[in-house]
């Protein structure tokens, strides 16, 4: 990276970092906080499942898949905005 565009890189990195933090917060909610309270959630029912069981058996997993696809979609937007789009070599 040459010196003149280091300011652009900093702005790019700030945006990337905010996105990453958002993703990690959502990740922590679905991988740590919800399983922690699975017992309490079991008193509710979802699609015929006890909710706590449903979340750790399926719900959180579905969220993880969607979360990564969302992050990549958003990250691609950021890359495009700053013109950091690579040529596909393969």
């Amino acid at each position, binding site marked *: *990276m040459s010196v003149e565009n*280091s300011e652009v*890189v900093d702005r*790019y*990195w700030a945006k*990337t970092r905010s996105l*990453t933090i958002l*993703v*990690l917060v959502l*990740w922590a909610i*679905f*991988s*740590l906080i919800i*399983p*922690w*309270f*699975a*017992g*309490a959630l*079991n008193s509710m*029912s*979802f*699609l*015929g*499942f*006890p909710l*706590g*069981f*449903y979340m*750790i*058996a*399926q719900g*959180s*997993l*579905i969220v*993880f*898949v969607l*979360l*990564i*696809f969302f*992050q*990549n979609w958003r*990250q*691609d937007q950021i*890359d495009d905005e700053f*013109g*950091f*789009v*690579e*040529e*596909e*070599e*393969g």
Partner: protein
Amino acid sequence: MALIQGRFIDNIGRVYGLYTGGFIVFIILMAILEQMGVSANTIGILFVAFTIAIYALIGWLSRTMEVDAYYVAGRQVPAVYNGMATAADWMSGASFVALAGGVYFGGYGYMAFIVGWTGGYVLVNSLMAPYLRKFGCYTVPDFIGTRYGGNFARFCAVVVLVVASFTYVTAQINATGTIAARALHIPFSVGVWFGLLGILLCSMLGGMRAVTWTQVAQYIVLIIAYLVPVIWMSNVQGFGIIPHFSYGGAVERIAELEAEYGLAKALEPVAGVAVLTTPHNAPMGGMDSWKFVTLAICMMAGTASLPHILMRYFTTPSVRSARKSVAWSLFFIFLLYFTAPALATLTKLQLLDPTLPTAVIGKAFEEVQALTWVQNWQSVGMLAVVDQNGDGFVQLNEFFMRPDIVVLATPEIAGLPYVISGLVAAGGMAAAMSTADGLLLAIANALSHDLYYKIIDPKADTAVRLIVARVLLVVIGAAAALIASLQLTGILGAVAWAFCFACSGLFFPLVLGVWWKRANTQGAIAGMIVGFVTGSAYLYYVYNGGAPWIGLDHLRFGIVGMACSLVAQIVVTLATPAPDEETQKMVDATRVPTGPSVLAAGH
């Protein structure tokens, strides 16, 4: 050979489409043979032998003498296929064979594996894969060695990698041995070497390129083998065409039955097998929650530090496709992991619910002893039905089973035709082989590239490097098979250890290498050594009967290791000078998807 060159990449969809179609035709053929009266043993042998022959053929077709192809499959694997290959690489014998059994016996506590082994990919995607891909490394120690500089840092990373991966690969070869022994009717110790032979055929000639294309093939086999029995079983029992969204009733019903039978310990324990004592779905909060979350954290951080997974993302053409392939990896992995609890639940219901014809609990003792599948598994010591209270009926605490057999025995329990059991054996074999391939390659590549080429003999030419890599592959494989044949630990336990080793030593040095520009060599070395040593020491202490500290038992020692690693790295980094200008520029270059990679091709 022409099949696998440039044209292969263009025709990849068609090639694997044909392959999948061919495999389905093969299954149908086996079903017809079964109807014609061919014995179950022959069908089992045909399934395992046929699939291994296919993998070996792919391995042979992908042979190469180019460094880039050997280490990173020429960096031209499309995202979706890399996703499948990673999924096969990831889903080991433990996931395929042992996970549903773990949930069956462990209930809520074991679901932490399911959340951990999927949630970890969020960490891989947001913290690691795109940046390591941009870096352009061949191996994980390659990143550590270049980012932090110095052979000592590289060497530490190699040590952690080898210990973690070797622990893991031993468990996988153990799993291949178990399955080969059962399907081919050979002793376990012979099965282990047979499994190793298959694994080497897939990886030795073509390195990463061969492993990639066999792993795609193995994924297709293993996912079909996992989904078909569950869906079939669900249709037979009336839990819907696709059970995943409608087995909630079964969860409730199991809770009722558990209350009715009572979850009591066995009157007399039987060695090697267990009775059900943990409720299917009853988290108690407090310590239960703490144990769940700590196990999940170890598995997630371990996922993001295990080199055989990270190196799969070095094979994609670009940073963007590396990210995309993480997403596809998780999708393909998710297909199996959200099926595992369904399988555990439905199998448990079949055994417990007296209104179903498959039930064994509450039945007369003689009647259960007469079942063929009970006899088969009893004869190999993996199941036991003992009328301990002498009332002539089977109680819940008189039905003993080894957790590892739940998946393998499910088709027989549900009364499905034997062709399904053969399919499941082939799937388990594919899962164990594909992971063992990836791990052996990760170890051999780290030793040949980082230890031999980068540290011992930087002038070695390509041919020598690739020969060294292959010799190491065989030697390490043989060592792992030797240890596996001793059967020191169970499959799931050894796997959890591998994750804890990896996250203790590598998680923070890798993350901070990208996310903290100030991170320097001394800090990284301290992080790796302190994390790895305290983690291992803690494991030694707990495993030899020490009282676990706040519930952190031997499956969770990564928490201790990681905490020490983080503190050590930050303290030592701040106490020593910041890295030089050049290193800081390197970090900047890593963070941006465009521009040349930090390490040139063929380095």
